């Protein structure tokens, strides 16, 4: 409180010298964080930098080994999440904790019931408060709407409303924009600004630099469990923040260079695909990916992209329509056949599909080629060849691991993904299919994988890139196909495409120009 020019009121939240050790790692090393009333304070760091641990400490999920938490200047001990909520600390998780079949009001009341008497809920009072809170912060919501029928952006608002209903004073948002379109992001930012203006303190966790610069009043950057600096948006920029976050200079945008496009490699025509429940989720897709180009598919998650890719790669049988590879019909070919035809696939869910976590890294590196020479002669495995080539891959793809015989589960997400990339990229390919190739990875790994993708394109491989990260699609693609409700609604040039235009297409399919935000069930 000695610093001149600072308001005399105590910070709403102060974390002093928080240290949290886990066996073998110091997740938080003497972290200081101060959030003033009405401030939006961004916590910026890569995955694994210690953001989540710090918030778990704040939320009472982890007990710090050292350090102190002060609320309004008073030292407190937070016993657990319910204690944290009682003290006005609320968290909006990246994956919403909502019950889709219940109404907005039911979800908000869950765990914080407003009672008319000891037996019955006071629904009328609850409704009144929900509507009033919504109105106060600029989003009116129908308390009787089913949460499952709301768009992701509105579901997030329900989460925020839940916190406000519990009289939150400090609101923690963990990667809130990860699932939103650019428009939805703008809308949620407006809500956050309004909350801050009303005196709410907000901790905004993110690894997206431009967002942090746009929304935050102050930015605390942490790296490897330590605070490496604090900045105001006015006194910094993306490059500066990236360098602080990663610890070295990083190239934020890939230099994709010129593409040399040749003839078509993959042709998809009139493809219809159903999901596991029998719903038609790909509804007549026509696509062409040419040699030496990256075709990016932009779309909000769940618009049929995964099923489209699975049908191309042979994991899912198309309902109707055709897939050709270099002019040859490969509709319904198995993953093994596609693999033999020089098609590689990086699946969206690396834990479910891409790796066998309990197996050694070396076995994972031959997961799709274990039956071929030199890894097997007949049915007999050649462990020496497997290990030798694994060591080569580790070297060339910079997979950080104590050895090739450690389990894949012990590697970090970035290194797991590099292992998949090493396995799938390390041969001559006609077609490379990538589904969310950098989801959840650190900046360094993303940079590396992007460069590998560009390198593949430059040797004439056709690349199909699906990503929910619009920025990734915009940065990488030579052409962009926007997918909406199982159809490709528009194909744009990758260099001239405008982010907002793509965002609107993603959200509406381009059918209604006026962007009515909120309830998605507008068009059939």
């Amino acid at each position, binding site marked *: 409180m000695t610093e001149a020019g600072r308001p005399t009121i105590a910070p709403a939240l102060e974390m002093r010298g928080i240290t949290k050790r886990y066996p073998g790692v110091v997740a938080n090393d003497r972290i200081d964080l101060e959030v003033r009333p009405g401030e939006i304070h961004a916590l910026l760091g890569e995955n694994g930098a210690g953001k989540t641990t710090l918030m778990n400490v704040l939320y009472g999920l982890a007990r710090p080994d050292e350090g102190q938490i002060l609320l309004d200047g008073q030292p407190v001990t937070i016993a657990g999440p319910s204690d944290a909520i009682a003290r006005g600390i609320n968290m909006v998780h990246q994956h919403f904790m909502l019950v889709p079949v219940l109404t907005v009001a039911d979800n908000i009341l869950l765990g914080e019931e407003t009672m008319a008497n000891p037996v019955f809920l006071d629904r009328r009072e609850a409704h009144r408060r929900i509507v009033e809170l919504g109105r106060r912060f600029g989003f009116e919501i129908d308390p009787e709407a089913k949460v499952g029928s709301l768009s992701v952006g509105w579901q997030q608002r329900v989460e925020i409303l839940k916190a406000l209903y519990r009289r939150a004073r400090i609101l923690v948002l963990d990667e809130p924009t990860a699932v939103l379109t650019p428009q939805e992001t703008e809308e949620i930012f407006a809500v956050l600004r309004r909350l801050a203006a009303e005196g709410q303190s907000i901790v905004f966790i993110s690894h997206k630099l431009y967002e942090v610069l746009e929304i935050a009043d102050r930015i605390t950057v942490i790296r490897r469990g330590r605070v490496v600096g604090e900045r105001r948006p006015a006194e910094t920029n993306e490059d500066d923040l990236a360098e602080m976050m990663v610890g070295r200079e990083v190239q934020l945008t890939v230099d994709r260079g010129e593409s040399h496009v040749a003839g078509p490699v993959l042709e998809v025509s009139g493809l219809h695909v159903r999901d596991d429940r029998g719903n038609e989720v790909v509804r007549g897709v026509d696509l062409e990916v040419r040699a030496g180009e990256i075709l990016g598919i932009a779309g909000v998650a769940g618009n049929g992209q995964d099923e489209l890719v699975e049908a191309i790669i042979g994991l899912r049988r198309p309902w109707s329509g055709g897939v050709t590879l270099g002019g040859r019909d490969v509709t319904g070919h198995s993953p093994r056949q596609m693999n033999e035809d020089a098609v590689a696939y990086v699946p969206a869910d690396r834990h479910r599909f*891409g790796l066998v976590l309990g197996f050694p890294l070396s076995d994972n590196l031959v997961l799709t080629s274990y039956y071929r020479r030199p890894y097997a002669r007949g049915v007999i495995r050649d*462990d020496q060849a497997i290990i030798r080539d694994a060591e080569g891959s580790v070297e060339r793809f910079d997979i950080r691991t104590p050895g090739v015989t450690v389990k894949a589960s012990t590697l970090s997400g970035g290194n797991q993904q590099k292992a998949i990339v090493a396995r799938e990229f390390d041969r001559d390919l006609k077609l490379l299919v990538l589904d969310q190739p950098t989801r959840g990875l650190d900046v360094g790994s993303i940079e590396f994988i992007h460069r590998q993708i560009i390198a593949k394109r430059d040797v004439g491989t056709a690349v199909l890139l699906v990503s929910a990260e619009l920025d990734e699609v915009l940065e990488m693609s030579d052409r962009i196909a926007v997918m909406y409700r199982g159809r490709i609604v528009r194909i744009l040039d990758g260099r001239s495409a405008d982010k907002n235009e793509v965002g609107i297409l993603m959200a509406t399919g381009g059918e209604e120009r006026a962007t009515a935000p909120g309830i998605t069930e507008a068009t059939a």
Partner: protein
Amino acid sequence: MSAATGARPPFSAARLARSAWSVVALPLVSILLSFVVGAAIILVSQLLVPNQRFDWALPITAYHALITGAFGSFDGLVATLVATAPLIFGGLSVALGFKAGLFNIGAQGQFLVGALGSVYIGVIISGAPSVVAIPLAVLAAIAAGALWGFIPGILKAWSGAHEVVTTIMLNYVAVAFLAAAVSGPLKVPGSPAPVTYDVGNAAFPVFLGRTGHLGILLALVFVALIWWLLYRTTWGFEIRTVGANPDAARYAGMHPRVVTVFTMTGCGVLAGLAGSSVLLGVTHTMTSSFGTTVGFDSISVALLARSNPIGIIFAAILFGAMRAGAPLMQIQAQIPVELVDVLQATILLFLVASPVLRRLFRLRGVQSGLGSTETIARTYGGEATVR
């Protein structure tokens, strides 16, 4: 970047001991605890017997007799090995299933039909020279067991019928089948009891003591064979991949359904061999009471060994020794042989409750055997439960 080139950590005896301990700690603790529970039961049960002096040392007497009976003499040792052989086969059968994410509760049924196949062919060719008769009788067991494993395998691959359900059903079918065969077509005509003819020359030769038969060696050969199959062949890699992550297996171009059918068939073969090792090695004939509980004990053996083929040898010896030592325990301490069932069941209970044990005894998770426990957990509730 020397750290990334896969340099092995330097050898250290302490490190080796620690990793060995992390593998065997849980089974050992389970075994010890089950003996403690057994001792408590022995003590309490004395109160139920009227006019008997309470003997604090009775558990010690009983366990001493159990161990002496199993290991105290050459004959006892051979009896232990004879009881161990079918448990090794059975344990391998269940373990192979676990590796592919399948819970083969049907080892008992496969065991019975295997024995039935052996006795059927064995009786027919009982007069032929042993070099011909033995292989044929063993092949009959393999074929019968294979069929009993193939059926649940194909049902699962085709219709998704869960193997836990179908193999339990087939156990009942096998029991009924055996009873019908022994009291009908295979029965010695005119015999008052339902019993078959002797397998004669198809019987396993004895090479150790008075009862140590060929089946013991055969079991060890199969341990090596299954280990080799699982860890040195691409088939084994496919089996383990399907078991550990069926989605990744499909992605990798494997065919989980085909692997399921093959693996279940293999499980049946192994359990069928367990049947032949009892029939051709010990009983030589079949009665309607043929059976014991080898197939069910095999599940415990596989769990205790964490599905590790080498571990199965030790787990099977433990269970075999209890069976072999129990009669002496009954004679010397008047404790019924059924105590052995109680001990085996409690071992299983403690293993299944392993999270509780780990917490109580501060045992760290096994680093090398993770796959098998995950697989087991997955087979209980179908593939959708884990992650």
